Each structure stands twice: as structure tokens, then as C-alpha cells.
């Protein structure tokens, strides 16, 4: 393979792996990398092959661009799907990511669960709520059967409001905590 075709095949592959980016972004990246390869080969008098090797595997290079984009998009998003996808990607890179991923799942499950119970309360009023016995919490949530007397439900229909507020707050905190972690992970790539 001649030096030119070697470079062309590297750039073609790079273009291919930069799929999710816009065409303009992709072409700009390819143009910049191609300028780098020419300059670097000229400067060192070395072969294109050496320069390409120093640049690193093309898949890795493209993945760094793609991860940057994914995390940048997610850190401004409110969608649990987008956020979970970015956290999942982060989780493949190390302990910090794995921790963030599990906390994210936990936060979404707990917050979403609470909101769900608030919606169930009007349908199953006797089975949903917070039960107390002698001033101590016995159980809470949607229960079949509900705890027996002397335990009694304390919130009544107020449960809807309490569960909605707590649930939404948990979801909100989870969302912002994930976004913050994603931004931090970008700044401190060492943690990835």
C-alpha cells in the first residue's frame, strides 16, 4: 500500500466510525486529522505509517469523539433514556461510571416507583399508604394485604401529594446528579 492509500483508508475508516456526528462535524475532523498526518510526516521525515501508528487505533480515536458528543448531549438532557445511555457508556470505562450507573438506576426506580404508587392510590386506596403502629413505621407502598390492625394508615389521600412530591424530587435530583457526574467525568477523564 502506498502512503497515500494508507492515509486514505485510515481517514475513510475514521469517517465511518464517526457516524453519529453531523456531516459537517465529521468532515472537519477528517480534514484536521489529515492535516496532522501530513504535517507530522513532513516534520519528522518519518513515514505515514509511523505517524498513523502514533495517532492511535482509528476506532479508539473515533470513540473519543463519539463519547464526547454523547456525554455533551446527555449532560444537557432531561430524558432518562438519553441519560441512562450515556451513563451506561461511562460504566464501561471504570469504577466511577459503574457507580454512577447503579445510583442512576436506583434513583430512577425509587423516584418512579413513588410516583407510580401516587397514581395507584386512588385505584387501590386501602392497599396504598404509610402504616404506623405505636408511633413506629411498619410499612409503606402498595401492599397485598395491607398491614393488619393495630397498624393503621396515616396519610389517607394526602399520600398522593406526599408521594408525588417525594417521587418527583427524587427523579429531579437523580437527573441533575447524573448530569453533574457526566460533566465531571469529562473534566476528569482520569476517572474514566
Amino acid at each position, binding site marked *: 500500500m502506498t502512503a497515500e492509500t494508507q492515509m486514505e483508508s485510515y481517514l475513510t475508516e475514521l469517517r465511518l466510525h464517526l457516524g453519529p456526528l453531523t456531516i459537517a462535524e465529521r468532515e472537519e475532523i477528517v480534514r*484536521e486529522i489529515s*492535516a496532522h498526518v501530513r*504535517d507530522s510526516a513532513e516534520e519528522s521525515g518519518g513515514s505515514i505509517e509511523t505517524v498513523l501508528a*502514533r*495517532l*492511535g487505533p482509528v476506532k479508539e480515536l473515533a470513540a*473519543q469523539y463519539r463519547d*464526547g458528543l454523547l456525554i*455533551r448531549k446527555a449532560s444537557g438532557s432531561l430524558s432518562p433514556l438519553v441519560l441512562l445511555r450515556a451513563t451506561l457508556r461511562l460504566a464501561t470505562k471504570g469504577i466511577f461510571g459503574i457507580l454512577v450507573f447503579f445510583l442512576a438506576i436506583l434513583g430512577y426506580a425509587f423516584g418512579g416507583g413513588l410516583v407510580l404508587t401516587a397514581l395507584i392510590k386512588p385505584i387501590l386506596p386501602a392497599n396504598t399508604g404509610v402504616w404506623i403502629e405505636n408511633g413506629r413505621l411498619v410499612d409503606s407502598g402498595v401492599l397485598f394485604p395491607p398491614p393488619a390492625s393495630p397498624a393503621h394508615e396515616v396519610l389517607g389521600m394526602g399520600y398522593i401529594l406526599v408521594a408525588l412530591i417525594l417521587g418527583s424530587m427524587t427523579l429531579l435530583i437523580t437527573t441533575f446528579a447524573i448530569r453533574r457526574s457526566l460533566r465531571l467525568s469529562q473534566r476528569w*477523564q482520569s476517572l474514566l
Partner: protein
Amino acid sequence: MANKRALPADGEQPDRWEAQLRKGALEMATLACLWRGRLYGLEIIRFLESHSQLVLAEGTIYPILNRLKAEGLLTSEWVEAEAGHPRKYYSLTDAGRQRLSLMAEAWTCFSKGLSHLLEPVLEQQEIHQ
């Protein structure tokens, strides 16, 4: 041009902690390269090699530049060069200068504190040597 000390010997991998430390400082170092004026990617890589011990796979710098630009800390422009192809030059934005100043302050404060903490360790090493 490159500082020999900055290059690890062949096959010698800096240990993981050290590698993380370097990566963590890379964003600040990249911004710092541009403090005096615009540079293109390869110049930034060579600048980092000769002024700091942050040796990196050459490909690493470009996604970082891309991200710093997306964050509004850098701007870029294509400039025609004698080489026959244009080069993408980066410069700091006002936000970038501001961020870098804050980072430099925090870094100096942090490293002074640590140096103080490590003084006895280094003194002891000298005695042993």
C-alpha cells in the same frame, strides 16, 4: 525539540496512578498552551512535549480540543499555510481564559499544599541516597 526526560523509555509504562494524574491535568495543560496565542493541533502536541511531562498518544489531543471548543472555551479558524494545506488553529475565548485562570489558581494552591506535605518524605529519601 522534545524534552527527552518527558518521554518514557521504550516499553516503560508509567504506572496507572501517574497516568491518571497526567490525564487529569491534560485539559488545563491544553488550555495553557494557548495562553500566548493561537496554535494548531500538532504545535499543541509538541508544546506539551517540550514544556510538560504530559506525553500522550497524538490522537488524544484532537477529541479534547473538539470538546473544549464545544464548551465554548476555545475557538478555531482554518488558516492557509505554505505547506499546501490549511491548518486548524485554536485560540482561547474569554470564557477559556477565565476558566484557565481559575484552574491555575486552584492548581498552584493545591500543589503548594501537597509539596509541603511531601517535604519530609523527600528529605528522608535524600538522606537514604
